[in-house]
């Protein structure tokens, strides 16, 4: 006899109460980051110089700005998922764990938000 309810089975809920959601989100963001990071590294590598005017002109180009926003957003999400896993594995005291997880989430939203806002400022020339 199974102790799992049919509803729990349909929702994919295990003992952690969120099923495979974290695992799956990590894979989806990983796949998305393959083209995004390659584009970013290749773009910087092939720019004639990395001085202020050249980089600003490159990032003002709509497609560059758009892809850069996606890169920062998906990177921050993927990084948040990964570092959460590290904290969950190694920080065992409940209070410390909550503090670490909370700080990590805030830090990722802050850094990602600041990065995206900066790209938009360059793109819209403010």
């Amino acid at each position, binding site marked *: 006899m199974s102790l799992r309810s049919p509803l729990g089975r349909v929702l994919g809920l295990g003992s952690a109460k969120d099923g495979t959601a974290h695992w799956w989100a990590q894979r989806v963001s990983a796949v998305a980051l393959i083209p995004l*990071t390659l584009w970013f590294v290749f773009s910087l590598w092939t720019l004639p110089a990395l001085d*202020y005017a050249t980089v600003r002109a490159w990032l003002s180009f709509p497609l560059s700005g758009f892809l850069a926003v996606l890169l920062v957003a998906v990177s921050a999400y993927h990084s948040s998922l990964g570092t959460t896993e590290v904290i969950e594995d190694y920080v065992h005291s409940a209070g410390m764990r909550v503090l670490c997880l909370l700080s990590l989430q805030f830090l990722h939203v802050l850094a990602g938000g600041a990065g995206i806002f*900066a*790209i938009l400022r360059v793109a819209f020339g403010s």
Partner: protein
Amino acid sequence: MPARARPTSPHLGIYRWQIGNSLSILHRLTGIALAFGLLALCYWLVSLAGGDESYAEAAKFFASPVGLVGLVGWTFAFLYHLLNGVRHLFWDAGYGFERTPRHASGWFAVLGSIALTLCIWGSIWAGHRS
């Protein structure tokens, strides 16, 4: 309470080191390094939006010895995490579990990321000199 401590899953003290667990640990370490890389990327972007002076300040930091070690380190961390991450995705899809492809792909991830890091920074160094 049981009379004796229950056996636990492999602990580092009795675990024989091999390519599999080393690369797994390296994947996590490079992931943590890349989380700091994300901070550096966002700092760089904010400095770019801030104008000529703040960008020059950030560029000075990245050109300093500490900055350069960071950039080369992040290049390697990114390339290794990318190649080994693709390896993980293949495993998730159910491929590459046999001993030969598992070891071959592991060495490919390590040597490939080292070679690509040298390529990228070699070309930057050559371009800088010319």
